[in-house]
């Protein structure tokens, strides 16, 4: 078994090196692999230089067998270790998302590559924009709404609304987000329905806070069985404020003070009549 393996390796090594080398050249190049050298010489060529071949052959058996033993044992170790590593790697790959992450502890992961962050953000249907620095982003109310999906939850959202979602990773307080998963847009005159999403629609939002919800006590009891469990749970939430909806024509605001005065006057008269 071991001898067969060794012969195979010898054949490979001999083929790797030049096919018709001189003996001396072989000897120089294959100095560390004395055993291999000698055996190939013995098998392939029948040269007049038999003396040193025999010498080397005499030397070879001990070294050869030692080499064989060490080779086999190392091989066994290598294969075992390779198998373990392979299994471990596959498990890790299945558990983790992809290669760029390092698992420090069960809770904390360092996302080393920024691309991974953006990919994960795409899963949660948001794109991180820029931080806000003394910009006036909050506009007045516009009569436009959008149906947005974040994670698995959908909201009908308008300008200036607050939305509480599950904790969004990769964004800090005062971050601008662009929610690209928009299912429907609507205004006073127009409605756009996406199948399933509208490709050229974008909703801008700002992260207001990351906070914990109120504590919910989960109490389990089985009567007459002496079983009672109490567990407290606080869900981590993110509060988003919607600032802008893009992708639909917004009706221009033409509302000076004068026309606003007349309708209230009319309603007052109507109420007096009734």
């Amino acid at each position, binding site marked *: 078994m071991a001898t067969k393996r060794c012969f195979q390796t010898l054949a490979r090594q001999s083929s790797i090196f030049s096919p018709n080398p001189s003996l001396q050249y072989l000897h120089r190049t294959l100095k560390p692999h004395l055993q291999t050298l000698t055996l190939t010489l013995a098998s392939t060529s029948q040269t007049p230089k038999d003396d040193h071949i025999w010498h080397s052959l005499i030397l070879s058996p001990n070294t050869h067998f030692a080499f064989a033993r060490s080779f086999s044992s190392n091989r066994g170790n290598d294969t075992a270790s390779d198998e373990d590593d392979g299994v471990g790697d596959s498990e890790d790959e299945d558990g983790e998302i992809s290669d760029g992450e390092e698992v420090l502890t069960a809770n904390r992961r360092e996302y080393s590559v920024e691309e991974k962050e953006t990919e994960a953000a795409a899963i949660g249907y948001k794109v991180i924009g820029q931080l806000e620095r003394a910009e006036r982003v909050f506009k007045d109310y516009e009569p436009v*709404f959008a149906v947005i999906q974040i994670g698995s939850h959908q909201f009908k*959202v308008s300008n200036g609304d607050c939305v509480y979602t599950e904790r969004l990773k990769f964004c800090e307080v005062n971050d601008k987000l662009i929610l690209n998963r928009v299912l429907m847009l609507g205004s006073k005159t127009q409605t756009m329905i996406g199948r399933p999403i509208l490709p050229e629609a974008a909703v801008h939002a700002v992260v207001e806070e990351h*906070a914990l919800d109120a504590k919910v006590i989960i109490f389990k009891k089985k009567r007459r069985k002496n079983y009672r469990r109490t567990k407290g749970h606080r869900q981590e939430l993110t509060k988003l404020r919607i600032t802008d909806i893009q992708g639909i024509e917004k009706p221009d605001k033409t509302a000076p003070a004068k026309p606003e005065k007349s309708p209230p006057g009319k309603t007052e008269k109507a109420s007096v009549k009734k």
Partner: protein
Amino acid sequence: MESHLPAFKESNPQLEVVTEEIRGQHPHLKGLYRNRNERVVCVKNMTPEDVLECAAKLRNSLGRKVLKLKTRHVTKHPSVQGTWTTELNL
């Protein structure tokens, strides 16, 4: 003893971070918010990393009272195209 304090101070230039030594009391973090709300968190027997996490949580949150949410969507203008009624004819 928070060894991460300088880094925390640098990452939050808008905050005033004050350290005081209090004798005879448990160590705690006090957060003063703009709506004059105070949140006190006891950090007794916590590692520096945990203390940093607590401080980050205080920084991330507004000072609002922690209540159960009635709705996840808070809006002042619930209807754009008019509220639906049974008499609505499209």
